[in-house]
């Protein structure tokens, strides 16, 4: 009687220890093998597409800009209807995004997305 009851209970209750354990371990293992994480800071120069994406994101998130008008060639004042002080603010946002310090006179000359992309892409310390 007792053994029959025990068999019946064990038939219904499952404690899948081994299966569960392997499921827990599996994602960790695949994570370690698939994700490439560079531990070196050398040779981390930005790719052009990355620079373009990040600069366009900055310009699109500027409050006075219509995001649908933003393209990689857009001129801040002629095409987006900004004024010169907005231009200064955008350049400062770009400096912060790429951890740069652009000299005042050079920053003053950057007035379009194309120039900003070129400057940041060619800057050795952009990251």
């Amino acid at each position, binding site marked *: 009687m007792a053994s029959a009851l025990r068999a019946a209970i064990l038939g219904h209750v499952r404690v899948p220890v081994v299966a569960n354990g392997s499921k827990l371990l599996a994602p960790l293992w695949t994570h370690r093998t698939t994700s490439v994480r560079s531990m070196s800071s050398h040779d981390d120069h930005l790719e052009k597409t990355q620079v373009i994406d990040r600069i366009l994101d900055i310009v699109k998130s500027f409050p006075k800009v219509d995001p649908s008008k933003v393209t990689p060639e857009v001129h801040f004042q002629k095409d987006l209807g900004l004024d*010169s002080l907005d231009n*200064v603010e955008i350049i400062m946002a770009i400096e912060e995004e790429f*951890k740069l310090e652009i000299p005042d006179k050079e*920053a003053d000359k950057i007035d379009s997305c194309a120039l900003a992309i070129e400057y940041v892409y060619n800057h050795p310390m952009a990251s």
Partner: protein
Amino acid sequence: MSGAASYLARRAAQKERVRILYRRALKDTLNWAVHRHLFYPDADALRERFDANKNVEDIETIDRMIADGESQYNKWRHPDPYIVPWAPGGSKFTRNPEPPAGIEIVYNYGREDH
């Protein structure tokens, strides 16, 4: 004609001075305000001060206003501004990593064999 050209040149120089003054003042605002939520109202106030005199036409008045703004900026300049680490004065300036193994420097000052 030369009068108009010199007027335009002077206006262009003034515009550049204003842009650079605004840029420096905005950076200095970020130096004084340690958090973003403190920086935004300060930056808006700065922008309002610049926008208030947006439509001034008289060239001498503009010169005086710019000089006044620059002296105010110099007076309130932050003594210890943030400098990007790699830039001169930054915390990582001239702190270079060791050369990779296998590269050695021969200290043989000026007596190398040519």
